[in-house]
């Protein structure tokens, strides 16, 4: 026993054996005492949690621990386990059950050594409880669970793989027996758990029983008589089953069998609501002519379904199975029948419960009602299948993406059920993210239209402004809305959907309020669209979307901030749905600010206000996001052109005179003009950042606040755009001229080249000043420019007379003209450096400034005038 000296604190290792022993005393019934289940059942969870939090079974083998202590601990664990084993062999099923559960926990918690030394004993013990003499359901379930735990732990030791496979092989038949012969659903579920562990971790053990396992699972699924949860577990096992063989063909065969089975069920279910031709066509695709029909799923045909019920559960489980086959990994390359699956999806989505004319006489209203009530579930699963396809195939889906776009956009127009719309939105997000801007072109119009409709419905907001109200209104939906919890959410929501009243799918949602979860999905989708495709042809919708997002964000925040902490009395999702909505709207707003556009975001000031408020007032998550938004917008408000360290530092280090001169040019320019590129240079060199940025900000604020100011800026830009073309052509004319007179110039080039092969570029610049005068002189006289420089000077003075920097711009213009000219007359090579050198001596403003750009239209306008004058 442990010594009863003072324990240091709760981390003291000495505490652990003591605690373990007292747990044994307190909770584990001695052999001859009856189990006080009333107590222990309540306390079992707390027992487990104590075991786990204090790692009581871990037997940490650390150097620092006293060997005596190790022994004490070891013996305590020994006692614990022997206690469990005695419980396990007890006749009382309740004791046995407790022992099995705790053994499962011990499998997870005990040390590696102990596990490896005793796993086979434990496995055999547990195995005896799922074999025939055992009769208690509870014990069977618990044994399955504990065995699954044991196998999982075992799978982490690659060195015992072979032994593990042997042992696991012993489990397969008992499990199949449970599935086939037991008639309690809970036992099937437990068996499915164990089967999963077997297939996932010891596929080799299944290999011999492959067909039997398939048949057992298939019969359960095709009978459709279990709960959705159990069916799904079985479906998952079926999806993983091909891994047991691990080759290409068994995957394809399984997929084909499942698809054929789905198809057969659908043919039966859709009798009367779809044209006969459809089902024939699907069948033809599934089994290529000349090939044999594979054996039906499970080996023999099951026709167990009653005619008055639709086999929805079976179809949906099989589709779930397809999804899992696509999204779980497989060791070798497989061939996915993409076309077939897409055809299946399209077929399902096409059926909306309306009756084709030819079928009218044969259908009763009861039949139609039946179909309509089940259709949402089937639609949901076909969307799931589409999602799985996109996930599984990724970029390879490209040849089919046009088809998917057609299916999705067509369905978007008709789909009005909230949970289906949410799924559809998430498909669109996936498509946008995986296929990039190319698909944004096709999807944008529909996304914008639908999202605008969803977000514009005001009535929804008025009803659901407070978290308390969101509960009932969206109770059935939120689980589906959350992408992250997809796995957990699936089962619950589908069950709910099955109970939901049958919707009239064809009806439009004119009077429906749009649930908040749909709005969240719409906002998220807009966000992704802006991220991926804002650069695409977005002019038509961009401004309206920006406005809409601003409006939505303001509306979402005008009644205070939502709280993301869950209220224990409300279902978790509904408590935070309002805060989720706020978060989504703020995120979309930030994206709309940051997405590339040609004008300043018009609502930036309001958005900033919102973010600032949120940062101070909102709860943790929202505040965090608002802080991030302000952080990200910083770059937009104060454009940051960081210095190109490697590029410029080299120039600083250079001792060469010419390159220093070049730098001076830049600085002289930057002092006069506020181009961001130059300001960055100044920042590194002079630290004159603040004044510079403030200036920029002030100017910008003017821009923002005074619309008049802004409208002054825009026409200038437009003018430039318009004028760019003639200007361009004049330049290219010039260049063509150059190409026509190559001989002399080229000769010059070659001469120079031979002299200067290894000379560094800046050496060349030294020679420039000498030729500078020649160049500028020629520039004035040259006809190649196509315009008389003096003429253009005169012309350009008039439009620019308002400018304060008249002289600068004129100089500028000259330097530009010089340059173009220089290309023709001097060797083209030197001319590029010529203007630099020239400016170096005269410290002119160079071209890369706003005002100098403004002068360009002047030149261009001058062209035709001067021409006509000379004419």
């Amino acid at each position, binding site marked *: 026993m442990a010594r009863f000296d003072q324990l240091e604190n709760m981390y003291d290792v000495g505490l652990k054996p003591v605690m373990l022993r007292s747990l044994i005393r307190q909770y584990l019934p001695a052999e001859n005492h009856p189990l006080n289940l009333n107590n222990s059942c309540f306390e079992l969870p707390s027992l487990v949690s104590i075991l786990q939090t204090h790692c009581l079974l871990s037997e940490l083998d650390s150097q620092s621990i006293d060997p005596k202590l190790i022994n004490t601990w070891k013996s305590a664990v020994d006692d614990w386990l022997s206690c469990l084993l005695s419980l396990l062999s007890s006749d009382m099923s309740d004791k046995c059950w407790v022992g099995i559960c705790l053994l499962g926990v011990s499998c997870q918690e005990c040390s590696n050594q102990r596990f490896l030394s005793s796993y086979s004993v434990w496995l055999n013990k547990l195995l005896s409880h799922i074999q025939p003499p055992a009769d208690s359901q509870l014990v069977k379930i618990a044994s399955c669970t504990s065995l699954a735990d044991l196998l999982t*732990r075992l799978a982490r030791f690659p060195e015992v793989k072979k032994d593990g496979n042997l042992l696991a092989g012993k489990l397969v038949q008992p499990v199949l027996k449970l599935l086939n012969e037991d008639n309690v659903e809970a036992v099937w579920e437990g068996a499915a758990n164990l089967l999963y562990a077997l297939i996932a971790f010891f596929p080799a053990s299944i290999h011999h029983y492959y067909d039997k396992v398939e048949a057992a699972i298939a019969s359960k699924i095709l009978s459709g008589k279990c709960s959705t949860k159990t069916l799904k577990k079985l479906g998952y096992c079926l999806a993983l089953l091909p891994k047991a063989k691990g080759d290409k063909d068994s995957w394809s065969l399984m997929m084909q069998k499942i698809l054929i089975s789905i198809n057969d069920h659908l043919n039966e279910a859709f009798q009367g609501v779809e044209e006969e031709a459809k089902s024939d066509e699907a069948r033809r695709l599934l089994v290529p002519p000349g090939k044999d029909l594979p054996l039906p799923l499970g080996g023999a045909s099951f026709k167990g379904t009653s005619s008055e019920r639709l086999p929805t559960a079976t179809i949906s489980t099989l589709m779930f199975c397809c999804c899992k086959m696509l999204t779980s990994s497989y060791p070798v390359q497989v061939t996915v029948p993409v076309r077939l699956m897409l055809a299946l999806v399209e077929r399902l989505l096409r059926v909306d419960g309306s009756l084709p004319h030819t079928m009218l006489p044969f259908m009763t209203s009861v039949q139609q009602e039946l179909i309509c009530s089940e259709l949402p579930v089937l639609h949901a699963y076909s969307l799931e299948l589409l999602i799985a396809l996109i996930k599984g195939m990724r*970029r390879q889906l490209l040849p089919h993406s*046009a088809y998917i776009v*057609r299916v999705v956009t067509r369905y978007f127009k008709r789909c009005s059920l909230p949970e289906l719309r949410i799924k559809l939105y998430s498909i669109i997000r996936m498509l946008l993210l995986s296929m990039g801007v190319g698909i944004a*072109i096709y999807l944008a119009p529909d996304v914008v239209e639908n999202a605008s409709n969803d977000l514009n419905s005001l009535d929804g907001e008025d009803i659901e402004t407070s978290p308390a109200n969101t509960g009932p209104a969206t109770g059935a939906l939120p689980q589906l809305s959350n992408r992250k919890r997809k796995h957990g959410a699936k089962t619950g929501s589908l069950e709910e959907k099955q109970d939901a009243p049958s919707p009239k799918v064809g009806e439009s949602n004119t009077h429906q309020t749009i649930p908040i979860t749909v709005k969240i999905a719409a906002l998220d989708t807009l966000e992704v669209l802006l991220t991926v495709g804002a650069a695409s042809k977005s002019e038509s919708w961009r401004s309206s979307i920006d406005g809409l997002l601003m409006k939505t964000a303001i509306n979402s925040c005008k009644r205070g901030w939502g709280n993301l902490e869950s209220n224990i009395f409300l279902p978790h999702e509904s408590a935070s749905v309002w805060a989720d909505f706020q978060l989504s709207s703020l995120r979309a707003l930030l994206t709309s600010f940051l997405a590339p556009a040609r004008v300043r975001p018009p609502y930036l000031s309001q958005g900033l206000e919102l973010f600032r408020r949120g940062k101070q007032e909102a709860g943790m998550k929202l505040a965090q996001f608002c802080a991030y938004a302000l952080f990200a917008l910083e770059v937009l408000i104060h454009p940051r052109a960081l210095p190109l360290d490697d590029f410029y530092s080299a120039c600083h280090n250079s001792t060469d005179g010419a390159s220093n001169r070049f730098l001076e040019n830049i600085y002289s320019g930057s002092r006069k003009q506020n181009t961001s590129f130059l300001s960055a240079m100044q920042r590194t060199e002079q630290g004159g950042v603040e004044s510079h940025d403030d200036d920029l900000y002030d100017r910008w604020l003017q821009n923002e606040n005074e619309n008049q100011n802004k409208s002054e800026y825009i026409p200038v830009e437009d003018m430039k755009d318009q004028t760019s073309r003639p200007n361009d052509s004049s330049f*290219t004319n010039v260049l063509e001229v150059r190409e026509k007179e190559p001989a002399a110039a080229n000769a010059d080039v070659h001469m120079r080249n031979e002299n200067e*092969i290894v000379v560094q570029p800046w050496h060349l610049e030294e020679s420039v000043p000498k030729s500078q005068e020649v160049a500028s002189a020629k520039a004035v006289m040259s006809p190649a420019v196509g315009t008389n420089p003096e003429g253009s000077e005169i012309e350009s003075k008039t439009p620019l007379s308002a400018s304060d920097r008249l002289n600068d711009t004129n100089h500028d213009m000259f330097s530009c003209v010089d340059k173009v000219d220089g290309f023709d007359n001097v060797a083209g090579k030197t001319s590029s450096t010529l*203007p630099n050198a020239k400016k170096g001596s005269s410290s002119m403003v160079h071209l890369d400034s706003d005002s100098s750009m403004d002068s360009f239209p002047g030149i261009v306008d001058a062209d035709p005038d001067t021409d006509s004058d000379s004419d």
Partner: protein
Amino acid sequence: MEMGEKMNKEALVVCSDKSTGIGITVWDLETGEQLLHIPTCAAAPHGLFCLRNQFIVASQSNRHGSFGGGSIFIWPLNKPQSPLRSYTLEAMGPISCTKGGLYIAGGAPSGNAYLWEVTSGRLLRTWHAHHKSLKCMVFSDDDSLLIFGCTDGIISVWSMISLVDVEDSGSSPSLLYYSSEHRSSITGLVTMSAGARSIFISSSLDGTCKVWELVSGRHLQTLVYPMSVTAIALHPIERLLFSGSVDGNIFVNVFDIGAVEDCFVTTEDQAFVLKVHNESITALTFSGFHLISASEDFTFCLWDTINRVVLRRFNNRKGAVTNMVVIKQSSLFPILNHQRVTHQFQVSLLQKYPQPSNPGKGMATFLSFPASHSKPPPTHFHGNNLLDHLISGSEQEEQTPAMLQTKLEKNIDDRLWVTSMTKHVMEISKHLQCRLLDMMQCRLLCNPYELDSSPKKKRHKIQSQNQTPTEQSQ
């Protein structure tokens, strides 16, 4: 350790278009030694690329078969002796592949374009894209658009989605737009991965580089050079544009699309000039932060762009280098060193003629990412509920501490559920016991004068039912 260093080193693949005898040479950029030589290859400019870091693909310019067709060779880098020789209907000029290595596009001198799926080798589409010879082509960064440059200066941008559409319903035109702003042959196309704003740059013999918005085709900027531009490359950080000209100069421009969106011309007054070649630049590329330039003068140079000096000058004695590709040296090693090689897509012979697509036929693919596959399951035990984890999770790589936490809670909940079920059963039996006691008491104390209420009658019934088995057992 030495191996690990070697893995990260880069090598340069060069080839020429003059004669097949020159072949492909792989150079070690650091030591300057030849790592590999593959004979018999002469690729047209822009006709060489590295596929998935494993294959060298080259269009053969000189190899006209008896029918005047062309060919594309694919060499596995770790087994260069056995190339895949695919024969095409026409001689191929420029070729290119998507980033994921799923599709290969090729352009012919006739202006026809070809698009193959690499895995199956299927010729997905051929179409007449231009009237003149195609000069170069490049996929957008997200592989969703394809850009062609033509000898007549026309640039066209095509949507991959409608190009490869299996149904080809004609609902959406493949050609997004075209532009004929360049006055002379296009010599280079470069795409930028600048986030949402997709941009590409074209260079032309007319002495300009133009900057375009990828999707809308809006012309953003023109850079004018004194000479015809024959090759361009972007610095890895995308702020410097290197343009090689016909006289051997390489101009270096600061490339600022954010600030000068409205400038229609930026002149070269900002440009530095790198000068060492004395004949036309044929290709530019980057290895890390080092520029590599190749020229007609039979040499190619490795530059330190910071100090603007040539670090190493290579001489390709047999002919001018027209194509350069930087690859990882690790891809040259034989298969033994690659354990993940099993999870690579196969590469098939590219088909000569388009074949009707078979709708029943599937598409070969790998499910789930290879990375998650090669990773052994963690041996450290996390103490989560394995059961729940297995059934719901299934994706091993998703195991974050938060998830473990929630699973732990779930575990306890689950056990609690079982517990409560049992407890429920126990309660029922306890209740029955109580009643039994109650009734026994009742019977003992029972006297006929007491009022018989209806529940008691029931109780009597229950009691008698209950009692009979007990009595029998006793």
